[in-house]
């Protein structure tokens, strides 16, 4: 409090000159004209010297503006009865009708639940797994082996989604390897792709198969930054390997774990629709239809309710994501002093 007061007192004498800056001509006698002062301000001098850096930004700013910011402006059609080709500003405004339509749709709760479940179940396995793998890789004594395993674990990350889903159909299809094994053990062939029950496990496990190694890189890097001295000290105190992991390694990588946690919570409702779309069949549509695939179908395929409605649904989803991200960030800031922003 005192410090603040002091600052204000300090600032007080400076105030008149600030008023003058704002342009009271009478008080300016004896000073160079305003234009000259702006001309000589630190910003202007810096600008004259360094404006060429702005040229380096032109392509990136242009592309980002066109493909990221113009679509944000295009969100306005969420509040319109939009027909393709309509000018955005003079469209027929209908307020929140599209949102109401979606909230009142019989599919609304199914979509929310499907999206949420797919993400949260994926998160429960997908979040801790890379941390565990990183800890295990970090403790292996043979560095060559560890490098080799990392190469193996990172590999699937580079398989395309189309190929991954193709592999799933090859392995879990009616005449695939898995069904051959089931039959050889005396079971019935099972249509994994046509059964609703099989969709989530198949989706989540294949996603983890593909990305657990890749996601562990960041934790491995954090672990390699843990001071060896702390481990030595813990060893002298008689800590076992497991205790050292729990009390030295994990606390040391906690900041990065919180940041990753915030990011995953922010993405909880933003599951990748590209893979879901590839895995959808008539049999599993009841659980595999998520908000993002619904947006695609309503907006871009024949028989949908149109672009305005689909945009409203997508907008609704990104607002939820943003809120989740902000909540996660705030909570993390309060309790652990780790945050994204």
């Amino acid at each position, binding site marked *: 409090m005192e410090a603040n007061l002091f600052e204000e007192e300090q600032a007080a004498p400076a105030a008149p000159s600030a008023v003058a800056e704002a342009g009271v001509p009478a008080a300016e006698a004896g000073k160079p004209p305003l234009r000259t002062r702006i001309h000589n301000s630190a910003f202007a001098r810096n*600008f004259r010297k360094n404006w060429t850096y702005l040229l*380096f930004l032109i392509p990136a700013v242009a592309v980002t503006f066109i493909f990221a910011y113009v679509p944000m402006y295009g969100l306005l059609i969420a509040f319109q009865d939009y027909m393709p080709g309509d000018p955005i500003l003079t469209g027929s405004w209908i307020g929140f009708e599209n949102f109401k339509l979606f909230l009142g749709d019989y599919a609304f709760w199914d979509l929310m639940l499907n999206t949420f479940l797919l993400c949260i179940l994926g998160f429960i396995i997908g979040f801790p797994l890379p941390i565990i793998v990183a800890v*295990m890789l970090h403790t292996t004594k043979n560095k060559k082996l560890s490098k080799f395993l990392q190469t193996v674990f990172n*590999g699937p990350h580079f398989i395309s989604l*189309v190929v991954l889903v193709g*592999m799933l159909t090859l392995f879990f299809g009616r005449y695939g390897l898995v069904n051959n094994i089931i039959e050889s053990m005396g079971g019935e062939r099972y249509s994994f792709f*046509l059964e609703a029950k099989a969709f989530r496990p198949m989706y989540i496990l294949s996603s983890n198969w593909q990305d657990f190694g890749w996601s562990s890189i*960041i934790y491995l890097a954090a672990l390699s930054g843990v001071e060896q001295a702390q481990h030595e000290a813990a060893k002298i105190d008689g800590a076992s390997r*497991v205790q050292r992991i729990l009390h030295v390694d994990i606390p040391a990588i906690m900041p990065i774990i919180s940041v990753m946690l915030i990011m995953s919570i922010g993405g909880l409702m933003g599951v990748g629709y590209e893979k879901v779309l590839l*895995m959808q069949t008539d049999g599993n549509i009841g659980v595999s239809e998520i908000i993002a695939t619904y947006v695609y179908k309503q907006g871009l395929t024949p028989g949908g309710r149109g672009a305005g409605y689909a945009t409203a649904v997508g907008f609704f989803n990104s607002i939820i994501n943003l809120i989740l991200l902000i909540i996660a960030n705030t909570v993390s800031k309060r309790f652990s002093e780790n945050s994204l922003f």
Partner: protein
Amino acid sequence: MENMSALENENMQTSATPAPAGKRRRRVKETPGDMAYYIITYILLGILALIVLYPLWFIVIASISNAEAVLNGKVFLWPVGFSLRGYELCFQNKEIWIGYGNTVWYTLVYTALSVMFTLSAAWALSRKNLPFRRFFMIFFTITMFFGGGLIPFYNVVSGLGMLDTPWAILLPGTVSAWNLFMAKTFFQTGVPDTIVEAAELDGANRFRLFISIILPISMPIVAVLALYYAIGQWNSYFNAMIFLQNENLYPLQLVLTNILTAAESSVGGGEGYYEAMLQSNQLKYVTVIISSLPVFCLYPFVQKYFAQGVLVGSLKD
């Protein structure tokens, strides 16, 4: 818990007894608890490695096995009844090769554009005296957390008249904020300010400085960006699916969606059906390999760059 403290005691004792001078370099013997930990770790890692490798291995051996043997579940560890029928089918398939050609040139052009745009912007953003620097940082950061979504994005591309042209594949997504900030961090931490100052004293203009001095010492980040963008483009199908109608423009992944993920039908029967299924199955195994081959051939050589990218990206500035 009791077990733990017993182990602790044991460990204390061993470390308390002074080691004989000559054997000091020898490794400290593990306690039984630690040994158990290591054994379990190695077993789990081994299982994980098998889970990752076996499906890939199976695809390879299935692709060179007799189609019938694969379908009847005779193939497990080694190829059965060597046959290259799948590869023949694949090489005869014109769509795949048109798609392959398209993907190759899309990837080359897109990667070149992306790397140029991203690098130059990252270089500007990494300069402390860039005018309006804060504004531009916020400008790019917002796109990481919020966007217009699918439909407005589609409308923009369509409004620009890019539908059904390669531009719809080549231009959107050329600047990813993540990659941009990764490159910016690289420039901030990896390029000494003294180099820049020296060059400016010599009177080199900013473009010459960037091209003839900064780029040559920034090859690691160029490699990382090029690989990230190239893999992203090589593997993507969705934009092509919504923007392209003309099949001659289809990239490989879009062609593959038809071949690989054709929904299995529950109806069937008859000799012709069985024969067709054998062929399509074999073709699937082969296309998985053919389409992933370039990525996996490069992968062992470039994977250290990938990891570096993740690490640079994780640094805070």
